[in-house]
């Protein structure tokens, strides 16, 4: 599905609404250029999941794991600096029990993953406007209707 987001607040709100559809084992891939709003959306997801700890860019640390008030862990990954499969292994993410959000997924995705949601964010035109394309891959997302609104 496609939609247009007009402000950073709306981006965060989108993330909150998205989080309602997420379960442990889910993988969300955020693709977009610098400044597209990936961390902003993740912040919204974090709010929706009641994550503990501020959602901050994981570029430096590679991954930040947040406990949530009553639910699965939220793992926030920035794969931009991952240069090898070894480093991915090193992160040792507890996929089964976590909701994993990955920025710059190009270095992250391989055939071992069966299900994921890919959100492509384009910040082409005016200042704050973003165009989103949301696609679910794999049997997990076949029947899911995203309650995402606009």
């Amino acid at each position, binding site marked *: 599905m496609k939609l247009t987001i007009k402000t950073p607040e709306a981006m965060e709100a989108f993330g909150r609404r998205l989080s309602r559809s997420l379960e442990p084992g889910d993988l969300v891939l955020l693709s977009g250029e610098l400044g597209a709003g990936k961390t902003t959306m993740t912040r919204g997801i974090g709010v929706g999941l009641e994550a503990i700890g501020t959602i901050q860019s994981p570029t430096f640390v590679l991954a930040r794991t947040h406990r949530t008030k009553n639910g699965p862990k939220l793992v926030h990954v920035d794969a931009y600096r991952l240069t090898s499969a070894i480093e991915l292994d090193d992160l040792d993410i507890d996929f089964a029990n976590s909701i994993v959000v990955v920025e710059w997924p190009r270095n992250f995705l*391989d055939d071992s993953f069966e299900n994921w949601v890919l959100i492509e964010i384009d910040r082409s035109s005016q200042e704050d406007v973003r165009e989103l394309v949301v696609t679910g891959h794999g049997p997990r997302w076949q029947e899911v209707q995203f309650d995402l609104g606009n």
Partner: protein
Amino acid sequence: MILAIDTSAGTSAAVFDGTKQLSFVNFDDRFGHAENIGLAIQGAFSKAGITPAELTLVAVGRGPAPYTGLRVGVAAGIAMATALGIPACGVITLNAVARKHPVGRILVVADAKRKELFIAGFQDGEQVIPPSVATHQELEDYSSFRQVPGECDASVIGEYLIWAKAQNLDLTDTSALYLRSPDVTPSAGKRVTG
């Protein structure tokens, strides 16, 4: 007196006196290695009724295994050995497990995540396939081998160590064993498009 540590699966520690195992403490949790490592080692000491000063050697499992957890055991083992001024040895988990099956053609198989497996093949105790990564398909090439689960712990590590020392094998490498080759290429500096 040997302290064996392994965090390739759960978190475990064992104390051996010569060839005799005096204690074994194991935590099954696959994710609590940092939490459990101190308790495992401390438990192994007290169950064996020994003080750390009596140790002469530390053995650590080098994997292959999920690395975040594996490194906890290796770090603990190296630190313990350094603090006591005694040597540390590294044991490859697949080899250690194989030791328990010294007869026949066996393939030790462990989960490598990402839909792959760590394998090592042995014929009557001799290694014929070195530790490597394989897909499920590739496993079919080894149908002549009897598959053995590669789950390891400190007890298995310790027993292997005792045997290996008697064979004068070189176990001085305590680094975590990485079998995957770096296969993801780093991206070139991308132009931020408008």
